[in-house]
């Protein structure tokens, strides 16, 4: 009797630190971000991309969906189900809170302005969040010359900024990039993607 082969390959698990970039160019449908040999985005192809700096304990890329079940009186389990909601987030803690450009991006409601002696990041009065692309690049576990990409087509940080000033620890501010749908892209592909190299 033929049997199903065990399906486990260590190379298909993940165990590496990742880097997060904001402001990458939006890839064409079916394409990904071009990276150099170290996993950094091509700066010509991504003229506005910014590395978010180091994270506190890595990043979590999450896709989840919600549903509505159709029930009937004759059964105890649903006889039909529809997906009614989808959510992609990239979350973690970011460290570089004294970087004015990052502070403007991560706070969402902030506006950066160069003034004499430094940079002013002001808050208050913005009505709509500015969304942009989010890229997470993680080297493959057994081949660090290849990189897995996690991508949000359009998202913004819902956590704002939270800065603790203390002698006891270096600051880390939580972040959670929340994906919006780019509605005119193909259904099933309009929020983000994960690319796994072969």
């Amino acid at each position, binding site marked *: 009797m033929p049997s199903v082969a065990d399906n486990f390959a260590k190379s298909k698990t993940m165990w590496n630190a990742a880097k997060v970039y904001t402001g990458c160019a*939006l890839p*064409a449908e079916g394409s990904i971000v071009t990276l150099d040999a170290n996993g950094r985005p091509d700066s*010509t192809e991504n003229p506005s991309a910014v590395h978010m700096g180091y994270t506190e304990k890595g990043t979590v890329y999450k896709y989840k969906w919600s549903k509505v079940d159709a029930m009937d009186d004759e059964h105890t389990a649903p006889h039909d189900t529809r997906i009614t909601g989808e959510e992609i987030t990239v979350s973690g803690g970011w460290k570089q809170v004294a970087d004015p450009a990052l502070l403007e991006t991560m706070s969402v409601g902030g506006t950066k302005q160069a003034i004499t002696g430094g940079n002013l990041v002001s808050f208050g009065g913005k009505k709509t969040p500015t969304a*942009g692309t989010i890229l997470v690049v993680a080297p493959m576990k057994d081949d660090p010359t290849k990189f897995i990409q996690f991508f949000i087509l359009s998202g913004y940080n819902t956590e704002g900024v939270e800065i603790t000033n203390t002698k006891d620890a270096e600051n880390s501010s939580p972040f959670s990039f929340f994906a919006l749908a*780019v509605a*005119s892209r193909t259904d099933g592909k309009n929020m983000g993607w994960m690319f796994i190299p072969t």
Partner: protein
Amino acid sequence: MGKTTGGTQDVDTKDAAIKRVGFDDKGVAYPGVDPETGERKAVTFEGLKKEFGAKDGERIYFEISRIGGHGVEPSAPIDFRPDLSLNMPKDKRAEVEKVLASVNLSPMDKVIAEG
């Protein structure tokens, strides 16, 4: 730069008529244009408006988005105008080059380019 870990490859843009675009009067490359090779790898909303004028720049931006399937339409929220990567299949990239060249060439260049 330039190693692609998957997806599609850029096309070669050696056409003389195309190679002249992408730089301002002072020879500075617009965002997304490789200053050494002149290869255009991306476009930005503001960069196209500077290069081609507000009206044509905006039109080209949305035309490229349509060709590449980026999905940014004029009806999208006004603050969602991300840079658009031109890393796309060759046939689509050729369409993009045609759109760019149609605006940028002088009338005489257009006659020459179109044969």
